[in-house]
């Protein structure tokens, strides 16, 4: 009798703990989104309705929609974003597949090579392409070929380089888990490899591919940096915002374009609908990981292809690193270290601020995003839909607009939010929310790959959400969590467009130093500073990686992760339990 009561109390408290876990998993990240994304954006929306004389109305919208050139900019932006998306999905899938499912060599190198565009300041990409493919670039000098890099094609190349790593990040999370038994069954039924790819691999990665496509499309349509450097006379929407806000100091018109750029994120509604449909297969607790054996017919061409893409990313960066050791590129090609003697704008000090800011952004980001993604399946579908939309909206906001929205929201003297203004922590928050969508979509893709039956197993053994989290979700999510952490870390080290509105006379970051050096005419010093940032990022990542390694070695979770990764062994916990036993005993 008393033991029954005790059990009931236990159950009750566990239930309470469960609810508490799910509630706080949603509530805290949601409060963050509201304060640090929705509220600032709301103020920008207000600006878009404010007219030059201080009154309110929709005149700005009419002005934008009827201004000459806007139709062309919309058309150009669409063509560019659609092409970039098409290329990035094909290339991104090839690379993610090569990394996760094939037996090609040099995977670690390839992974590193393709993260370069994420950890390099935007100046590096711009200079690299110019030094290589410009009218006076190396390719022209060596081959005499007159390339016209400025315009659509140059912009397409630059955008692909920038967006591809983000596509890979998400698609990889989708390809991480699969079940060899589907492939075995298909084999027995006589399906060709190609058929298997079309009917098993692709459908299973559907959500990841759609999400990646959404991210690529949106980052391309909102990107200003590449368009300004290499777009030539190919005018896009983001350059229109820039000339309205920065060129003509016309916030209202800029805000209108910023709001209009949110429209593409409506695609996300469709992705969410697809996602809520039951995906065939999914993985199960008894899944036998697909072997990553080497099939010459598939892996040799695939290997050559993906390594070629990787090499392009490497060559662009190497060129700039080389130029940083040159006296006067391309006229006096003598070696010098002088460019590394940087005394302007605080010397190398902003680099340390950046490091701090980026670690803050990444830690905060991973915690919020992981719990938010984890709770998506555990809250009502209606709420989940709203959370999903809010969480993917930030990718539709250009950095310039986000930065200004932060000034409007946090440069206040009459309430608590004002305390953050001018601090490096606000920069960290801004960087996290700037890349919120990519991190969230990667996490959600990763969580979807966790076998539902494994969660059920834990649950019917009496494990609450907390146990599910610890024993089922976390072990599967290890690699995805780490890749999201590094993604936010890398972007936060180098992102510029929003940050220039948040630095103060006392707090500045590394990316701003690069911009200032370049603006003051010291291009080689800017290249040298960029090189230092890249080295710092790589060293910091190496250090953090070995820390994670060390930690996971001491814990038993390591085994789980390892088993997931090599896949040759049975999955300890999951395999021990027979699902039937679970059902019959309850």
């Amino acid at each position, binding site marked *: 009798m008393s033991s029954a009561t005790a059990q009931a109390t236990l159950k009750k408290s566990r239930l309470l703990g469960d609810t508490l876990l799910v509630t706080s998993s949603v509530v805290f990240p949601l409060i963050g989104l509201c304060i640090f994304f929705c509220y600032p954006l709301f103020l920008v929306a207000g600006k878009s309705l404010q007219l030059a004389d201080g009154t309110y109305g929709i005149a700005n919208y009419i002005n934008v929609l009827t201004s000459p050139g806007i139709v062309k900019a919309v058309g150009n932006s669409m063509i560019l974003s659609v092409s970039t998306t098409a290329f990035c999905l094909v290339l991104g899938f090839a690379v993610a597949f090569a990394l996760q499912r094939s037996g090609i060599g040099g995977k670690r190198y390839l992974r590193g090579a393709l993260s370069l565009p994420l950890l390099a300041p935007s100046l590096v990409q711009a200079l690299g392409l110019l030094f290589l493919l410009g*009218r006076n670039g190396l390719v022209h000098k060596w081959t005499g070929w007159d390339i016209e890099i400025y315009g659509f094609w140059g912009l397409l190349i630059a955008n692909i380089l920038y967006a591809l790593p983000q596509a890979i990040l998400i698609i990889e999370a989708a390809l991480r888990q699969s079940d060899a038994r589907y492939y075995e069954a298909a084999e027995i039924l006589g399906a060709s490899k190609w058929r298997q790819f079309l009917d098993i691999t692709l459908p299973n990665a559907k959500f990841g591919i759609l999400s990646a496509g959404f991210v690529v499309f949106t980052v391309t349509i909102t990107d200003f940096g590449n368009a300004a450097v290499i777009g030539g006379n190919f005018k896009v929407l983001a350059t229109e915002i820039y000339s309205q806000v920065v060129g003509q100091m016309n916030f209202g018109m800029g805000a209108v374009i910023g709001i209009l750029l949110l429209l593409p994120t409506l695609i996300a509604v469709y992705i969410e609908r697809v996602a809520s449909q039951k995906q065939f297969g999914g993985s199960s607790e008894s899944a036998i990981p697909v072997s990553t054996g080497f099939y010459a017919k598939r892996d040799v061409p695939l290997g050559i292809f993906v390594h070629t893409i990787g090499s392009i990313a490497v060559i662009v960066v190497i060129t700039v690193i080389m130029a940083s050791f040159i006296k006067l590129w391309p006229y006096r090609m003598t070696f010098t270290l002088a460019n590394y003697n940087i005394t302007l704008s605080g010397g190398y000090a902003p680099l340390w601020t950046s490091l701090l800011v980026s670690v803050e952004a990444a830690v905060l980001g991973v915690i919020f995003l992981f719990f938010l993604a984890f709770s998506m399946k555990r809250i009502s579908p209606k709420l989940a839909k709203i959370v999903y939309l809010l969480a993917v909206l930030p990718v539709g906001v250009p950095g310039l607009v986000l930065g200004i929205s932060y000034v409007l929201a946090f440069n206040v003297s009459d309430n608590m939010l004002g305390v953050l203004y001018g601090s490096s922590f606000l920069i960290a928050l801004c960087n996290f929310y700037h890349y919120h969508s990519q991190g969230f979509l990667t996490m959600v893709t990763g969580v979807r790959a966790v076998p539902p039956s494994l969660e059920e197993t834990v649950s019917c053994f009496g494990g609450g959400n907390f146990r599910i989290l610890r024993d089922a979700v976390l072990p599967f999510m290890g690699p995805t969590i780490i890749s999201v952490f590094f993604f936010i870390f890398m972007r936060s080290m180098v992102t510029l467009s929003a940050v220039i509105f948040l630095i103060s006379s006392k707090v500045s970051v590394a990316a701003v130093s690069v911009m200032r050096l370049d603006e003051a005419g010291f291009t080689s010093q800017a290249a040298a500073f960029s090189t230092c940032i890249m080295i710092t990022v790589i060293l910091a990542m190496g250090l953090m990686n070995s820390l994670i390694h060390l930690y996971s070695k001491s814990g038993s979770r390591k085994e789980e992760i390892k088993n997931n990764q090599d896949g040759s062994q049975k999955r300890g916990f999951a395999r021990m339990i027979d699902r039937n036993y679970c059902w019959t005993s309850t």
Partner: protein
Amino acid sequence: MKSFSIKNVRIFATGALLGLAVCSQVQAGEITVYSALEEDEIADYLAVAKKSLPDIEINVLRLSTGDLGARIIAESANPQADVIWGFAVTNMADKKIISQLEPYKAANSESLPAQYRAEDGSWFAATGYMGAFCVNTEVLKSKNLPMPQSWADLTNPVYKGEVVMPNPASSGTGYLQIAAIIQGAGEEAGWKLIDDMDGNMAQYTSSGSKPCKMARAGEYAIGASLSFVAMKSVEMGYPISMVIPSDWAGYELEASGLVAGSKNKEDAKKFLDWTLSQEAAEVYAKYKAIITIPGSKPSEMATAAGLPENLSEVLYPVDFAKSAMERPEILKKWSATTAK
């Protein structure tokens, strides 16, 4: 110079460690200055200013003209700066910015010629820069092109696809160039010139210094840009010749003013006084094409780059008020003229 950077290191380190820098608390003797002057000039000027104003801690936020303008407007509800220093007068004259200033007649400002200061004392300009062509002599040689001397020369079809200039809709430099052409040549002839040049234009860039950087990298032969970048490029050893267009060289003044919301007006005023001192004029000479302070000598760099001693010979007297007022109309017409 050294003490400036060490101080900065310390400030950055503390700021980074604290995470939350408490900057709403203004210390006595500390001012925040927003400036669009270049990074290296600021470091030099401050090193000198420190000696004359040892009790004032001067914190400078440096951004490009456009970015700084956007920042100042966005912050207008709660202004963070005490002083705006060296900011394009065309932008300063914008209603959204000038309304944040408080008239202050700095010591020595009365001695400036009238066109270099606001009537009500809300701004004054100690320095300025001008529109200039950056011509890459190596590209000229390899393509066998003549040296251009004026805007009119740029309509010559031999330069087709070899000229770059800033887009006036996104760059102040671009605007000062076409404003000077239109005011100088007159409406009709001016627009015809712009239309004719458009045929040779390889691209319109979003930033004003970009055309010069493209020219010096050898991407294009001629970049219509700024005297500042041109002189810097010559000094750094690029094969660049600076050409001040002989017909209508547009110029821009770098204005300074006192922010009405300043919490430390006393020190802000002391600093503004300093920016017009003879001592300041001497350091300006190291960088500036135009120095308005009476009795100051032109810089060595300016002479080396071929600037005449008497600037009024080459500067077209731009009417800034007119130029700011007509801006929307001119930009609209420019878009129509150059739309391809």
